[in-house]
């Protein structure tokens, strides 16, 4: 009973803040609203015994929203508090598609005769997760590592306007190009 009430409260918060992301009039507020939505979902995860993942979600999202705020201010020179927020186009088709999607998904959620639960959660969820990651699903984590590697390389390549040769000179000896000393 209590779980139900908590769930509903969190659910309303999650959705409401989610809607708020696109309703508030500044990008900073949108960021906060998104973070709130994520926290609410992370808390719901706690309700279904997924403490570890729930906490991870909350932490990751908080961090990410912080990054987003910093990003907007530092890189793009926006003042989050003053940024006007009416940058939308084609509201009506967007609304139509979103409502349509919701109707389809909700209808599926409610009407599909879901199967019954198979098995029970492991006693120690974190341990079982760790074992899965290290054994049966080891390849997932093995693949995640090149993904992260690729992400770092790719993000840096895209985000940095200057490569190492711009900074260190063509022979990487740190020659200051702007000083006019051409490398030999």
């Amino acid at each position, binding site marked *: 009973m209590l779980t139900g009430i908590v769930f509903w409260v969190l659910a309303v918060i999650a959705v409401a803040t989610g809607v708020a992301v696109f309703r508030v009039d500044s990008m900073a507020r949108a960021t906060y609203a998104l973070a709130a939505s994520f926290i609410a979902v992370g808390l719901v995860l706690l309700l279904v015994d997924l403490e570890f993942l729930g906490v991870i979600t909350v932490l990751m999202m908080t961090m990410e929203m912080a990054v987003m705020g910093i990003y907007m201010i530092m890189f793009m020179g926006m003042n989050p508090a003053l940024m006007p927020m009416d940058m939308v186009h*084609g509201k009506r*088709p*967007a609304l139509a598609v979103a409502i349509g999607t919701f109707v389809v998904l909700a209808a599926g959620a409610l009407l599909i005769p879901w199967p019954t639960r198979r098995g029970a959660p492991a006693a120690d969820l974190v341990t079982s997760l760790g074992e899965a990651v290290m054994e049966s699903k080891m390849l997932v984590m093995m693949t995640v590592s090149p993904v992260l590697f690729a992400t770092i390389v790719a993000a840096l390549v895209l985000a940095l306007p200057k490569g190492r040769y711009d900074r260190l000179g063509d022979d990487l000896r740190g020659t200051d190009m702007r000083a006019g000393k051409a490398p030999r």
Partner: protein
Amino acid sequence: MTGLLWACATVPAVVGAGLCVTGRRADRVAPALGIVTAGVVLVLSIAVALGRPVTSAPFLPGAVFGLAVDALAAVVLPAVAAVTLLVLLFAAADIAGARARFTGLTLLFAAAVVVTVCATTLPTLLFAWEVMGATSYALIGFRWQERHRVGAGLTAFLTTRTADLGLYLAAGAALAGGSGLALTDLPELPAPWRDVAAAGLLVAALGKAAQLPFTAWLSAAMQGPSPVSALLHSAAMVAMGGYLLLRVAPLLGATSWAGPTAAWVGALTALLLGAVALAQRDLKQLLAASTAAQLGFVVLGAGVAAVAGGTAHLVAHAATKALLFLAAGAWLTALGTKQLPALRGAARRWPLVGVCAGVGALALAGVAPLSLWATKDAVLAGAHEESLALYLVGLAAAALSAGYAGKVLWLVWQRLPADADAGYDTEEEGTREVRVLQQAPLVVLAVGAAVLGLLALPPVADTLRRALGSGSTPTPGLVELAVSALVAVVVLLVVRIRPLQPLPGWLEGWLGLARATDVVVVRPVLRTAEALARFDDRVLARAVTGAGRGALRTARAAARFDDGVLDRAVADSATAGVRLAGATGRADLAGPDAAVRSLAAGTRWLGGWARRTQTGQLHQYYVSAAVVLAAALALLLAVR
């Protein structure tokens, strides 16, 4: 002996082809070479007529290239060879330019005739038959510098080829009936196919023989040189039509209808073309019409199974008509005209020519005891046996032939008018001389025209009949012979006393047959051809374009629909409708001329539609992805 038969066909063919290919360089030797060759052919033909060889060579699957000399061929072959030789002799003096081509074509033609006469299978027959047609085209259009002469050749060739289709049909029928392609097997065909074969052969023969309704080409063919007319339109090509019917008379007899049909067509042609001949003012036209009429007797003979009489008439007519054509040719070369009024008294200028022509005319008139009198009566006896009406029509036709023969005879033997020269040189520049070489063949032919009637009189006639296997056919009685001789003489005298009033124009114009062919066949075909060509260019060739345009219209509609889903559906589809109509209208207005452009435009439009989905607007990509995926989901759940 078979070698001689082969030689009889191949020697003229090879020499002729050689002369044609060599062209002008051989002009000098051509006449002599031609005469020698024709002489050789004549000797050979007499030899094979006596030896009666039968031979064949591989040709098509299921049909050999078969040649044989039977009694019928033995009679006709020497006659044709002889006329060829005489015509070449005459031409050596008559034809001035391009002699090699003339001689070569004539020899080729002669070879084709030899094969036609001796053919034992349908493919062989058709082979020679079509070569005759082609060489006749070339000979009629011999003076190619004048387009109307070539056109006349075209008419002749096309008309006869139309009829030739009957031979293809007959060949198909023979195969379908399973009898094989030999001519002698045709009567054994089962019922429907026998009729088809008979009909095909009948049509082919009527076409070549210039019988109704194919007569008109013969009039046009008079554009050719006179020696050509003498050979093709008396002794050989036209005669081959009659010959074919004589040869397949058993097949005609095997059906219930073919014989009578042939008989009636022959009789009516004899009658009507006799009248036409009577109305002519041009000597060669008169002779041409007469040819068709006289061949009518041959066809009549074949139709009533009077093969012996028909054969005799064929041969006798060959000599007579060749004689007359050559005489006409001699006058044409000398006087430059073939108009009858201008030829008044022409016979008196060159008496030998005149006498020979007179003999020919009298023979043609059927005056006893000249040849055509007896041969015609041999045919008419058969007709009498068949039906009285047929006989009477034939008799009337005989009277008409006496009429036009008399017309010519009296005219050319009238006193030479003082202003004779005024009428000359209407066709060409006359030479005012008739050479010896031109006159010699006339004498030979005149003798032939006089005595060949023996073929239809006892005792030769009986031999001939037995040889041809038609011993039971009726022979003309004395009464009949007398009646016809009397009719001929009476008509001759009538024409002498009361020259003819001008006859109706439709008679002089060959019954309007040429016009009718033009209106009924030629023009519609040409119109159809042009219409089809337009259709091909404007419709079929643009079907691809049209398909592109159609697809593009669909695409445009689809594009509108697509936009409509995204945004103002109703308004845009209305616009789409309007634009669609506009595009359609424009496309139609642009018409065929713009077709090529519209292909390009159609391609562009289609591509434009596809590229319109690539707006560069990311949110539209998202929406379209969502829409497509939703549709896919619906499909998945709906089609289960």
